[in-house]
């Protein structure tokens, strides 16, 4: 199976001033693109991997379905490709965001007490992830949960993330490349500003799908 770099669906400047255009350009055309290239390199000509789509590759990380000499390759590059494709889809221009749906808001209130308390928990997970990784809002056994993962791991990789496995409905890249040009070491400021560019319309769709046990359709 051959993978391609997806279009953003908006211009590189769209998320200004919260996420700068230069970061979006490099993040998409260099970092994400490299994951796609390397994933294609790993899969092409590999009988075991060639038949799997991106979702399956992620879900099978850490299992026998992936040849042992490709485990790290798949974990990093299938993870990187899925994570960034998902990330672009949950971002949008600041003026475009409508907030969580009634159903999602109710679930947030139920799980965390309020939207602000959920954001607090999410922000702490994002700020507290040491080194490179991601913060996630996801659905686990029908309930909302906040988790974080290292490097390019994600909650779909149930074998490696164990009890943190869930269906992601929102994610935030906290690798330094995601914010360094504009924020330098000030990761908490980047995390705060992220909320201004969340595409709640898409998150609402992912939530509605997740309660039926369906993973985000990228």
């Amino acid at each position, binding site marked *: 199976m051959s993978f391609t770099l997806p279009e953003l669906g908006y211009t590189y400047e769209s998320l200004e001033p919260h996420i700068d255009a230069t970061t979006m350009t*490099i993040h998409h055309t*260099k*970092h994400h693109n*490299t994951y796609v290239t390397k994933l294609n390199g790993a899969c092409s000509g590999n009988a075991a991997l060639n038949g799997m789509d991106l979702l399956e590759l992620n879900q099978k990380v850490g299992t026998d379905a992936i040849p042992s000499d490709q485990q*790290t390759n798949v974990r*990093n590059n299938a993870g990187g490709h899925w994570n960034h494709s998902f990330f672009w889809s949950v971002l949008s221009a600041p003026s475009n965001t409508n907030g969580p749906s009634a159903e999602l808001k109710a679930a947030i209130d139920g799980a965390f007490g309020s939207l602000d308390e959920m954001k607090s928990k999410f922000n702490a997970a994002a700020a507290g992830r*040491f*080194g*490179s*990784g991601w913060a996630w809002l996801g659905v686990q056994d029908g309930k909302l949960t906040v988790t974080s993962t*290292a*490097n*390019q791991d994600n909650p779909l990789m149930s074998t490696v993330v164990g009890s943190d496995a869930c269906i992601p409905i929102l994610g935030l890249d906290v*690798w*330094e*490349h995601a914010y*360094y*040009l504009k924020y*330098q*070491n000030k990761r908490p400021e980047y995390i705060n500003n992220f909320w201004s560019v969340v595409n709640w319309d898409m998150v609402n769709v992912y939530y509605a799908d997740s309660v039926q046990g369906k993973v985000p359709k990228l």
Partner: protein
Amino acid sequence: MKAISATKATTAKVAGARGIRATCAGRRSVSARAVPLPDLPYDYGALEPYISGDIMKLHHQMHHGTYVKNFNGLLEKQADMENKGDYAGLISIQQAIKFNGGGHVNHSIFWNNMCAKSDYVEPSGALGKKIEETFGGLEALQTKMSAMSAGVQGSGWGWLAYDPAKDSIFVTTTANQDPLVTKGDFVPLLGVDVWEHAYYLQYKNKRPDYLANFFEVVNWKDVEARFAAATA
């Protein structure tokens, strides 16, 4: 009653001999000693154009500075927990101590591993010979260390290390701020920070370019001194 008095007396004797204050419970009282942020052995701009002054300043003051601040706070907490006998608490903060203390240890080595280009000399003497024997020369070592450091997934460090058990030098990497000692009884000779903060403002995603330029400002005199100390 007698048994407790005997314990107290013994504790007091031992404590007296070691100069440590004994508490009534028979536990010595520990206190944390604040670790200072070390100065760079050169100005922020000294490594230009290989590593920018902007990066050096941010890297030293904000990144290393934050590790030191956090580490000191954690050392205080640890001493407090030890004094209170809160061992579960003490264990719960060890991860944070590894992160922040490791950050301090690693960066302290790193600053000294580099020097201005005008001060650059290639390795010679015992280390020079060891590099020749082990890798085939400086260029081969740099190629290997660059490749391994470029391959670090996420955040971490590349190392030229000394193994006292085998009297050998080798290249390896560690993740996040794990000090080299977490991989074994090895001595760090030369470290290269490959966290994105170490190069992003200047090199963006081009980590290999950063690594090539890093080798232009390696302070081999410092690396030789570490090797000499390890093999003394």
